[in-house]
């Protein structure tokens, strides 16, 4: 019959017209990110609440855009830990090298916190206090 190509195309689109749309209306409905996805960084702590970081400086050194800054403190027992820990997430490229290189599992990437967009660049510089919150389902 005539116009076979046109009729085939029209049949496809009319079929899709009655299919469910795949759109997710983002702020109203949210997808659950995969378990192994890696988003914002967070600092690991021991069960007693002590920070795991020993200030070896490897993450500072391996970070390609150099966004990690640590100021150490010396504890009473002579060990070192991070007094200040700062990541500029506005410049971070999320390569995950810091997580990979860390010998103490002190810096990790959250598997669920992906909404940290901000209108102010300065607010993207995360300090130790806000970095302590976070969890990774894959590590649990």
């Amino acid at each position, binding site marked *: 019959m005539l116009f076979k190509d*046109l009729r085939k195309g*029209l049949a496809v*689109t009319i079929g899709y017209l009655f299919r469910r749309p795949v759109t997710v209306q983002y702020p109203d409905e949210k997808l659950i990110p995969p378990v192994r996805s890696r988003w914002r960084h967070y600092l690991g702590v021991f069960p007693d609440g002590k920070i795991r970081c020993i200030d070896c400086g490897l993450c500072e050194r391996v970070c390609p855009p150099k966004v990690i800054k640590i100021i150490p403190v010396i504890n009473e027992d002579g060990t070192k830990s991070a007094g200040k820990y700062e990541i500029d997430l506005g410049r971070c490229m999320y390569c995950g090298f810091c997580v990979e290189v860390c010998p103490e599992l002190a810096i990790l990437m959250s598997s669920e916190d992906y909404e940290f967009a901000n209108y102010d660049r300065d607010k993207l510089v995360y300090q130790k206090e806000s970095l302590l919150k976070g969890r990774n389902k894959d590590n649990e």
Partner: protein
Amino acid sequence: MSDAVIGALIFLVKFFLLFAIISVFVLYATWYERKVIGHMQQRIGPKRVGWHGLLQPVADMIKAFFKEDSIPRDADKLFFWSAPVIGTVFAMMAALAIPFGPPLVLFGRHITLDVVHLPSGILYMLAMLSLVSFGVIFAGLSTKSKYPIIGAQREVAQVISYELILATALLNPVIMAGSLDLTKIVDAQSHLWFIFYQPVAFVCFLISMFAVSARVPFDLPEAENELVAGFMTEFTGMKFSLFYFAQYVVIFTVSMLAVIFFFGGWLGPSFLPPVAWLFIKWAFFIFLYTWSWGTFPRYRYDQLMNISWLILLPIVIINILWTGFAIQFGLPYLH
């Protein structure tokens, strides 16, 4: 009150009624098309402004009002200002002659349901429809910018392709009805719609119908992914919206023509009023426009010229000869 005053009043009422119908159609056609196209691509379409995005067209209109009105430095001011007006005015003038139903008798007066009733209505409508393209051509040439000029050149190529087919395809129903009056053409279909006598002419008309309104398989003057927005690249705000208005009025008018000429106009079973039947059939054509928009890629303008001059024109001419022959010698023809 004298007869002339009442006549003028009736004219004004009919005119504003038509204007209201067309304005509502244009507003909600944009919403409806975005919605249907969206669902064809498994998206949702407008959803946020109002219930299921029903206030989206109003929001778009407010936005268009407050847009910056910019005119290119080298533009020809007179033509730049008149181009959107020309398109809209002639498109509206074509719509004036659409009959929306059989003539009424109200308070002893004979009222036709078109704003102006002309004994040769189809000639008038075709003339006005071809004048609409001058708006597009002026828009393209007056801006002195490269994309609009390419758009205007394509429009010229498109006009010389579809005009002839549009008129000659409609000639077949005209021959069969023996009249240029749109009401009489509908009356002539009371036994059987002309689509069943003239399927070939209908296909030719359908193809030129997409070309006349510059919609998707033939949206050459405003090829969005090649020419930014084609002839209306340099237009902003309300001038830009007026081009859309003109385009949707042309779609409205041409779909009505298709219904009147091939699908028996307002004829239908009597459980619905005639106007309802007209608009039900018309809605099918409006859907056809959206459907093809969601489906087809664009033709090149040389392909369009080949289609019309080398394929459609010989077919239509043979069809006209055959129609004349069949009527002259009384070949099977229900009466």
